[in-house]
């Protein structure tokens, strides 16, 4: 399954809003079966970078190459409150050209939502919504998955399910980029960390250590050095 080509290559990508450059000259490669953590303060550009990589925003400079399909899990569910979990999945699957062949039900089971598949998502807790969003992102079996703070607002049980799914996706060869503030939990499934400071990717390197402290101090060093 290993291949010399990265699953996604980001090459000198920049994006602005109005006159403000929010992502500046970011380059990174992520291989199949690899999970990279993306850390940075609020406003550092993590979300924007993910949105550009997902294709929601155009890159004003640079380019992105993918081998395969891209999926995204964002802060908002991007689904309809008035529809049930199942209906939402079937609808979005339909837009990907997928027939309702039980795929939606399988995904719901896998993410522990089988018992609520027929309920409107307006009633769902944050944890359930997040898991549903992951199910939706997996509908078209993406090779690259972008996650924007996937564990925020989740309780332990839900977090465990999500982390297990991430590990499983990694094992199956997907490439993952995960923006997060929850360093400890994600350190268990990621091997590299990207540090974003003021829109730039200040560094992209292996985990400095299994605990959050090492990551935080490396981040602070980078901020201080004014990269």
């Amino acid at each position, binding site marked *: 399954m290993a291949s010399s080509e990265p699953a996604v290559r980001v090459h000198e990508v920049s994006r602005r809003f109005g006159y403000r450059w929010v992502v500046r000259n970011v380059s990174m490669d992520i291989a199949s079966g690899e999970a990279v953590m993306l850390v940075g303060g609020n406003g550092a550009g993590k979300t924007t970078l993910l949105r550009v990589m997902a294709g929601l925003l155009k890159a004003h400079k640079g380019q992105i190459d993918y081998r395969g399909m891209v999926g995204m899990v964002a802060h908002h569910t*991007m689904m309809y409150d008035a529809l049930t979990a199942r209906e939402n999945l079937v609808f979005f699957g339909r837009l990907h050209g997928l027939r309702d062949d039980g795929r939606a039900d399988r995904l719901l089971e896998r993410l522990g939502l089988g018992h609520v598949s027929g309920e409107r998502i307006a009633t769902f807790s944050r944890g359930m919504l997040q898991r549903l969003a992951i199910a939706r992102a997996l509908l078209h079996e993406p090779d690259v998955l972008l996650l924007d703070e996937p564990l925020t607002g989740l309780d332990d049980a839900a977090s465990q399910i999500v982390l297990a799914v991430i590990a499983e996706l990694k094992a199956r060869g997907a490439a993952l980029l995960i923006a997060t503030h929850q360093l400890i939990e994600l350190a268990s499934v990621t091997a590299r960390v990207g540090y974003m400071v003021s829109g730039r990717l200040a560094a992209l390197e292996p985990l400095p250590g299994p605990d959050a402290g090492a990551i935080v101090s490396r981040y602070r060093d980078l901020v201080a050095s004014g990269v």
Partner: protein
Amino acid sequence: MASSSLFGTALAVARKDLKVEWRTKTAFISSLVFAVLVLAVLYFARDKTSVGDYDLAPGALWVTFTFAGMLGLNRAFLLERENHALDGLRLTPISPTALFLGKVAGNLVFLGVVELVSLPLFILFYDVPIWRQLPTLMVVVALATIGYVAVGTLLSAMVVRTRFSEVMLPVLLLPFLVPPIVSAVQLTWRILALRPLSEMTGWLSLLAAFDIIFFTLSLLLFEAILIE
């Protein structure tokens, strides 16, 4: 495997919109109530001695459709703002054209139902010979509605990002309604007055031209609204 064809995905979007609307019903009920109110007010406010029913009726009908319709148009894209659902749509391979067609279809059904419910009321209020003319009238209503909805869908997609979208839409849309609605009123008047077809061809061609040109234009321009 179902294809992600243009019409297939457009239809999926339209059905989803209608399903959601059916479950919440808010826009639909407001539009209906509004239509009834406008019709009733215009009816009771008229001075029967100075203006005949024939002259007033077409205007009343179209004012009703126009304003009730406006309430429904914004709903199409307001729906997509909740939970950032529009991003979810943009993450799929759906083409801007399919999305536009789907939204237009949903709006057409919405408006169509409002019109179908208002029409009997209109007949009730205004004593005009409508039965024999009903097919012709329906054609005119359909044509005018298509043009109205096409432009309205495009504009609502833009306006939904502003703060006062309910107000912005009429402000932007009303000048665009001058050709189709004036044509529709002229045609309705002639239909109800049992005028010969020859008197209507001019307005009909204007209406048709408006529809064709603006439907196409709105379709083409929609992509510019969607792609960031």
